[in-house]
């Protein structure tokens, strides 16, 4: 039952270094010529510690789901490394790769399409044991699956039901049970509560937190809902057009943001307090996110930034410690703390 490699809380277990994923754009019928690249992820680095939740936020097309796929090794990176316990996951093969697959699991966004409608819940949750036969002996599987169902708050007697007999929130619990089956260390959650109603969302968030405490799990929590991410995350990275523009603890990002994009993003979140309408500071960004096939030179955010100057066009700001951001990383030449959350 114990986690295969043991790490004490706070120890770094996953290190991502300069991860890049470009998708080629091809044109032509017979001779498909490469005419460019969609730079979905363009140099992303972060680390994940034992028992911690790293939130990744950003708007559609910023590359956050591609990061998830890369970490799951569902995509091969164009460049860069991701090291789990110091071993590069893209160089793994054979039994080491099988161990990786066990150790890093995923919870998907859509609880309707991510469960096979023709399999019973017991088969869905138990399928990982078919592949990793060493985890649970055959006679033991049903009991394990029932334990998992109970763990995620479902009735163990429903083991023979099909996904359509469950509601959205219950299906997401099934997805979580499946992710837990092999007792992983890292779970990548890609928008796990976005498809759920508000009253159900809180139940699933609480479940994820409970499981984290119980099993010492580390989460990569990808979402576009900034309030949900603050609630669940220890640290948060903000992505824009394939890059992390700012990363720090939950409090640093939300209470003392220094990157203009983080500030604009936070100020755009509607707050459930009508009294705040009058005195909230509002930063409205103009226009849309540029195409990742042809990102702006220098700072990628400069085309929508109110602070943009000549330097932003020519020189790309690095994600480094900035004096104004006392202790966290920010990729802006003119990083400056600004309080935007009331």
């Amino acid at each position, binding site marked *: 039952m114990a986690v295969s490699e043991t790490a004490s809380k706070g120890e770094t277990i996953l290190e991502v270094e300069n991860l890049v994923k470009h998708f080629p754009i091809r044109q032509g019928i017979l001779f498909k010529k490469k005419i460019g690249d969609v730079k979905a992820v363009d140099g992303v680095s972060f680390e994940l510690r034992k028992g911690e939740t790293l939130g990744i936020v950003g*708007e*559609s097309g910023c590359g956050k789901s591609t990061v998830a796929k890369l970490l799951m090794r569902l995509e091969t990176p164009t460049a860069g490394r991701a090291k789990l316990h110091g071993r590069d996951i893209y160089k793994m093969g054979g039994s080491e790769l099988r161990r990786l697959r066990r150790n890093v699991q995923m919870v998907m966004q859509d609880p309707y399409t991510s469960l096979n409608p023709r399999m019973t819940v017991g088969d869905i949750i138990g399928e990982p044991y078919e592949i990793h036969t060493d985890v649970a002996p055959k006679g033991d599987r049903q009991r394990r699956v029932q334990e998992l169902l109970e763990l995620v708050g479902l009735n163990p007697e429903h083991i023979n039901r099909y996904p359509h007999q469950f*509601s*959205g*929130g*219950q299906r997401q619990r099934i997805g979580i049970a499946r992710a837990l089956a092999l007792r992983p260390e890292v779970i990548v959650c890609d928008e796990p509560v976005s498809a759920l*109603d*508000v*009253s*159900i*969302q*809180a*139940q699933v*968030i*609480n479940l994820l*937190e409970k499981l984290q405490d119980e099993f010492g799990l580390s989460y990569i929590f990808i979402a*576009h809902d*900034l*309030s*949900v991410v*603050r*609630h*669940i995350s220890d640290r948060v990275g903000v992505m824009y057009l394939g890059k992390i523009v700012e990363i720090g603890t*939950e*409090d640093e990002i*939300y209470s003392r943001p220094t990157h203009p994009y983080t500030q*604009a*993003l*936070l100020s*755009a*979140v*509607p*707050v*459930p*307090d*009508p*009294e*705040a*309408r009058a005195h909230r500071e*509002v930063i*409205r*960004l103009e*226009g*849309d*996110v540029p195409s990742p096939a042809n990102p702006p030179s220098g700072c990628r955010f400069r085309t929508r930034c109110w602070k943009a100057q000549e330097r932003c066009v020519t020189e790309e700001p690095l994600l480094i410690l900035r004096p104004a951001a006392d202790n966290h990383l920010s990729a802006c030449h003119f990083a400056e703390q600004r309080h935007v*959350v*009331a």
Partner: protein
Amino acid sequence: MTGPQTDFPAARASTPRLLEVDDLYVEFHTRDGIAKVINGVSYHLDPGETLAVLGESGSGKSVTAQTIMGILDIPPGKVTGGRILYQDRDLLKMSKEERRQIRGQEIAMIFQDALSALNPVFTVGNQISETLRKRKGLSKSDATRRAVELMDLVKIPGARARIKDYPHQFSGGMRQRVMIAMALALDPKVLIADEPTTALDVTVQAQIMDLLADLRRDLNMGMILITHDLGVVADVADRIAVMYAGRIVEHADVHALYKKPAHPYTEGLLDSIPRLDSKGAELATIKGLPPNLMKPPTGCAFNPRCKYAKDICVTDVPPLLQLGDGRTSACHFAKELLDGRL
């Protein structure tokens, strides 16, 4: 476009409401039985104000809007009772042709998914001007000119050039602007927005909500905003109607409702959302699941999930209690809840 009553929003008692839904009942007849999706819904709308209808999936918020628009699929839908008064005329008693005159010209609607609401094989200019040609009998060139004006009104940059573009050439936010332009083509007095920003990113959502608020004010329209997002409601609504299982469980001024909810469901919703301004402790949840509308619980539909439920809640359907200032709550213990005595 100015009706006699739009000019004096104060004198309400004698003048007819702009729109009034009165004790509406709607059922869906399905293979598995009859689902009672709307069970006595009443609300009203005055010129220049925004009424938010808040609810989770299956609460009946969209079905009410579809019934007002006359776009409810019949069968399986069936209106079994109630009235919908538009300027004192009952829409439900009108002929098809009369309703067609109201639709678009008096009451217009925008939808969540702008991409599937637009026709992919016609240019947006064609789609906006079609309404003008068919309904107002404008010539092709006049209609095109007006379409450009409308696209300017909804702040689509370079409207004159973009009128020849197809929906797929627009970003999500711009597509929603095209939808709004189409809805405004015939100068409606009521605009129903059904989850207009749910599919959009947060910075774009803020742009669209600002645009809708400006248009509502400038054109003195009444707006019904259907949403599940408590943040969006707090930002723009004047009044709010909370729906649960086909009933309005609470109806109040937006400030009053957020300050102190008068229904346990509203209270549960407000407590279960994570906050942007602090990490917060464990989220409060509403236990259980929304009811099956084929066999709703006896008494109050919320009673199986309510933490205050008493015997009377299982036996008696709660009446709509008047709490002053136009505030109502469908809870036996609304007064006690408001006074903090529960």
